[in-house]
């Protein structure tokens, strides 16, 4: 079996896990497998997927991004404040993404120029971005944006509504929420970047052997800045989408999102030591977490128990992966049992 097939099999194993979850929840709750609920799952998962895709890039290089949650909050607040200050909604939203990208680029520059470990650089950014978000808002939520600000987070494509006999609208098809469409688009785009573009190849090369990559003439610093910039920009986008969905930007929002992002990447088979990981894998990871939350909610599992279960799933998937890899190298049982060595 070739390496490609093995990788494929691993991806299929994760996918099979996801399918099992679907089946289990569909059996336990009749409303789980309805169009409405599936769209809800898509919507809920989309934010984890954005930041999961984003953080996959720095992790591929052997780095990490801990600033995601704070950047989510800062970007949302920045977008909302600019719109409230009179800027058109699309400009405000783009500004939010830009703020995220800027935070990410700063991370990248600190890591490559000042030679800071990614953990430290992004830990610092986590505090700085959170601090700025709280400072510029006086820790108060930003609201009062115009109606159109909510379209991105709440709108849907192909929504079919009929007016019923009693005059109330009946939703025939809830439509595909815009964030879900955005998620599909981003997943395809970044999968393409990683598989087909030079910069994608360089990300893997840096994660596999940074010095070999540098000695091959790859401008490793630039590639790493690119990775952190993408992670920041996607965190910014998440902040904007969340602010739009609630029509409120919370400077306290997005706490611990970075850990959800990292978890979805890791559950999807990304190695924290770098060089291994795919976008489809991360997407599956994000869905495993999203489906778990949704399904457990529908079954009335308390939030606290959910946390325990999700934590267990993360440990179990990664442990399974490790065990599977160890099997290849561990020695098989001896054919004939012989005596121990003489002491």
């Amino acid at each position: 079996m070739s390496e490609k097939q093995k990788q494929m099999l691993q991806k299929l194993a994760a996918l099979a896990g996801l399918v099992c979850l679907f089946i289990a929840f569909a059996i336990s709750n009749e409303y789980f497998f309805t169009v409405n609920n599936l769209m809800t799952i898509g919507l809920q998962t989309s934010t984890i997927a954005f930041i999961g895709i984003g953080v996959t890039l720095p992790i591929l290089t052997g780095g990490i991004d801990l600033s995601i949650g704070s950047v989510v909050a800062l970007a949302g607040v920045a977008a909302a404040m600019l719109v409230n200050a009179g800027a058109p909604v699309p400009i405000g939203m783009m500004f939010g993404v830009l703020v995220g990208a800027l935070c990410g680029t700063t991370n990248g520059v600190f890591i490559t120029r000042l030679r800071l470990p990614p953990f430290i650089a992004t830990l610092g950014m986590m505090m700085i971005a959170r601090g700025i978000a709280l400072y510029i808002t006086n820790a108060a939520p930003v609201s009062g944006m115009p109606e159109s600000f909510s379209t991105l987070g709440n709108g849907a494509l192909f929504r079919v509504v009929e007016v019923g006999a009693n005059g109330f609208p009946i939703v025939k098809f809830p439509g595909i929420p815009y964030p879900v469409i955005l998620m599909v688009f981003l997943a395809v785009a970044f999968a393409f970047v990683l598989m087909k573009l030079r910069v994608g190849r360089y990300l893997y090369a840096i994660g596999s052997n940074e010095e070999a990559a540098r000695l091959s003439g790859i401008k490793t610093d630039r590639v790493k800045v690119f990775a952190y910039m993408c992670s920041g920009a996607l965190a910014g986008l998440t902040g904007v989408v969340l602010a739009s969905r609630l029509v409120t930007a919370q400077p306290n929002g997005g706490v611990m999102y970075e850990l959800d992002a990292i978890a979805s990447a890791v559950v999807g088979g990304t190695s924290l030591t770098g060089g291994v990981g795919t976008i489809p894998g991360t997407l599956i990871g994000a869905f495993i977490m999203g489906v778990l939350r949704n399904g457990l909610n529908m079954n009335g599992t308390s939030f606290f128990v959910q946390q325990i279960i999700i934590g267990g799933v993360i440990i179990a998937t990664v442990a399974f992966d490790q065990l599977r890899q160890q099997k290849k190298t561990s020695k098989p049982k001896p054919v004939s049992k012989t005596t121990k060595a003489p002491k």
Partner: protein
Amino acid sequence: MSETLLSMTGISKAFAGVQALKDVQFSLRKGEVHALMGENGAGKSTLMKTLIGVHTPDTGEIIYKGEKVCFDSVLDAQEAGISMIFQELNLIPHLSVAENIFFAREPLVNGIIDKRSMEAEAARLLEMFDIGVKPSDIVNTLSVAQQQMVEIFKALSFDVEVLIMDEPTSALTEREIDKLFELVEKLKAKGVCIVYISHRMNELKRICDHITIFRDGTYVSDHKLSDITMDEIIAKMVGRSLDNHFPEKTSVVTDEVLMSVKSACRYGVFDPISFDLKRGEILGITGLVGAKRTELARAIFGADRLDEGQVIVGTKQVKASSPADGIAGGIAYLSEDRKLNGIAVSMSIRENMTMPSTDKVSNAAGVISYAAEKAACDTYIKKMEIKTPTIEQLVSNLSGGNQQKVVIGKWLFRDAKIMIFDEPTRGIDVGAKYAIYQLLDELAAQGVGVIMISSELPEVLGMSDRILVMKEGELTGMLDCKKTDQEEIMHYATGVKNMYKGQREVA
């Protein structure tokens, strides 16, 4: 002398369907130095690893001191008196020499590590063998050669009866090898059996009593060393006779200067060094450990920044502040430590081969074309005779020789004008070495400037046209290969002679 201490019979071992050992036998007599010979992949290391419990043999039995044994782990084997020094270093870089030697067996006083007695004990071991290392030195500050010595001491710190050395001299210089052999003699006198795995023929004569020859995972024969000639050994190893260790030179040195290095200097690392590289020439750079040959090469390439001086390729000055600049200037550097600097082992041959040249296999938008990559890989796999089923094979699954060929292939694809080979044949078997020598000559004949850094003097003498000799960051000699010999090179390498000393003092 003739009493058998250890015997292995009918050993077979397969990895994922690949038969690494087929019905192999081996026996070790008390007090002998026993060499295992064979090309890379012949199964020498694998056999020893089945002995010490790293691998479990699929079939066969091991009799040690008259008892049937099967060690579960390296520690088990060590407690029974069998230690192995691996080809790859297994030291912990951030701990001191003493801590490494006594790792996991630290002497304790009331549960607290007794650092003083540990260092005293380590110092006593180190005395046997003067390598300029203190017990308190941190391992990652030592040279590769010194680290290897520390590995040997670690093995010696057990009450060792059988010491297995896998390519112990591959990172050592002549002088250090002499010291190692002195130590081997001392151990032999103490009744320690030594199993010695090496590719270097000339070392055998100096220390070995008996040899066992392997080829492709099978046992070929064993002999007393006095009963067999070197040519016979080589013939048995490769199954053919190698009448010439170096290919006939076909490239002709011209007067055209391909690259000139002018007063290149890194403060505190090497002094200003100038030399020219001519078209068709193979320039050897040699010296003892600490001569800073690798540092010079890295600086010319741009991996480390030059503090002073210029590198001129053709008529253009190379900025050389990063490897990307060096490559843009037409320089390629093939590093000494492939796994560390040369290749990404967890990536495929295809991805490694095109790593410096992705611009050649992608369009203007940066989209990589699989077809173009495959075409390039197929060309160089064929040209370099890389043994692999597919271009998707992970490089970690290739033998050392084939990995080296992938690295050379990737720079050939880059069309480098100057190629700097740093120890190109380290850890590579005789047959593959010959292929690499042929390739160096072919490259030179095609007009590529070839610089070969090597510690092996026969190789330097056999392959180069001119030889630069360095000593501790200084250029001490520039010798014409035809008019020099090993002794003269050693004079310059050890600093007995220095043909630049006078000039510099005048200037």
